[in-house]
């Protein structure tokens, strides 16, 4: 910057127009520009994909328009909703099992040092072993059906829930516990009346993370089972995807499944967030 130029702050000088008065957070751009920016890249990529697909002579090549028709087909025939429901029921079952074990365990670990010290080595030893690595073991034990899938989901969901619950229980403001003590509340009762409510936000975070992990795990498990059971197995969206890859080679349908996986993940997260908000009316929005 040359010496003749005004210093940076002078941009806000009153000699300027109304632009100086607008809050800088939104910049000087209108809603329209921001929407355009937001949609720009995805639409551009979509257009490129469509062009490339149409120009290609490979009949298998997935193309956005075909993906849309495939989606409509799968929805109308009920295959997609059925697969999603099958996968979701396994996710919920596994998630419930994990939560029922992990939350009380996490609370006792957080509240009692001795419990934590003794149980933590086991938790930390198994945590780096991803759920999907256990899948062959699960198949060995429970076959290629729903049982193995639920076990994998439960295993996967267990760790985020327990770890966040412990952190939540430990992270309870010590002064709150002291306040309860000075009011004569017995130690054991403070677990229910102080630690649990105070740890609820952290438990909620754990549940949200676990839900995401559980959904990923079920897709992976069903995919792997589909691959190993030769396209058989008991349904679910992961298995459906594999069938579209290995048997009918319907890439458009695979992409529909992928989008469905993403959408379901979003919806689950949103629902859980809303649920948490309802459960904890005292958190500042």
């Amino acid at each position, binding site marked *: 910057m040359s010496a003749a130029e005004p210093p940076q702050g002078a941009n806000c000088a009153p000699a300027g127009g109304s632009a100086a008065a607008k809050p800088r957070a939104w*910049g000087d751009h209108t809603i329209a520009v*921001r929407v355009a*920016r*937001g*949609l*720009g*890249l*995805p639409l551009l*990529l979509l257009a490129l994909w469509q062009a490339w697909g149409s120009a290609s002579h490979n009949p298998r090549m997935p193309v956005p328009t075909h993906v849309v028709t495939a989606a409509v087909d799968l929805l109308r025939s009920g295959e997609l909703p059925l697969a999603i429901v099958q996968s979701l029921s396994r996710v919920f079952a596994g998630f419930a099992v994990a939560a029922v074990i992990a939350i009380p365990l996490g609370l006792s670990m957080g509240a009692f040092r001795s419990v934590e*010290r*003794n*149980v933590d*080595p*086991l938790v*930390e*030893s*198994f*945590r*780096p*072993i*991803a*759920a*999907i*690595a*256990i*899948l*062959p*073991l699960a*198949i*060995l*034990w429970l076959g290629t059906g729903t049982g193995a899938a639920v076990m994998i989901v439960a295993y996967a969901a267990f760790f985020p829930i327990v770890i966040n619950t412990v952190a939540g229980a430990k992270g309870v403001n010590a002064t709150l516990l002291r306040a309860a003590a000075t009011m004569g509340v017995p130690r054991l009762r403070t677990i229910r009346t102080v630690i649990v409510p105070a740890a609820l936000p952290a438990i909620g975070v754990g549940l949200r993370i676990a839900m995401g992990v559980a*959904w*990923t795990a079920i*897709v*992976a498990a069903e*995919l*792997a089972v589909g*691959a*190993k059971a030769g396209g058989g197995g008991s349904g679910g969206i992961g298995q459906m*995807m*594999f069938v*579209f*890859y290995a048997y009918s*080679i319907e*890439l458009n349908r*695979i*992409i529909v*499944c*992928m*989008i469905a*996986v*993403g*959408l379901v*993940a*979003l919806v689950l*997260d949103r629902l859980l967030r809303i649920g948490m908000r309802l459960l904890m009316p005292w958190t500042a929005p």
Partner: protein
Amino acid sequence: MSNGVRIASAGYRPALIYLRTMLAFFVVWALVAIVTANSILLPSPLAVARAMLDLARDLELFLHAGISLGRMVVSLAIGSLLAIPLGLAMGLSRALDEVFDPLVEILRPISGIAWIPLALFIFGIGNALPVFIMTYAGFFPILLGTIAGVRSVDRRLIDAARTMGVPQRTIVTRVVVPAALPSLMVALRLGVASSWTAVVAAELIGAPSGLGYAVEWYRELLATPQVMSFIAMIGVLGYLGDLGVRALGRRLTPWAHDAAR
């Protein structure tokens, strides 16, 4: 440092408790194995240990481990090289964020694993598939963590530098990046964990080598001790990888004291 000394002198106690818990675990396992008396369903810990030693002796264990690790290193390198600069840019520039964020938010919920069938079609079974899946899996945590790290930089640090007349470019390199580094390390940890999870899934389904492949191979042979050996290896390496990133974090950001440690 005094902290280290204190932990070291009290260190043997947690180690003893750790050993005691693991010992209890193995004893219970051994008892259950005896009761079920089905070496395919649940081999005894000794059988698994023996299998592990055999696999280690003929290096098969390490061969697959090395392959998987190698893939992860490559994936992380690619993932970081893509995610960190993009994350920095998106964190600093509102405009860039508005352009890229929708795409990120659309792709992010679609886990790396959901890409496997499509990727199988594009890459076939081989090295490229796991690397692609792992790069994808690691990319998003690193990207989002970088953006969050940049955004969380205390405005006042930047303002302080500006009042000292520091030019914008230098502010980015000398204020924003160091300030965001601790969050970046946390993001890296998450990326490593995500990638390592993906490696098993990818190799289970679509690779001719690696730990995930080995687990599945031995399962088909109903050789449970070997299956467990490889699973244990997956766990050990996952743990070591995490330790490694944490050590890197401590090295690069000695002033930080949060989840990166």
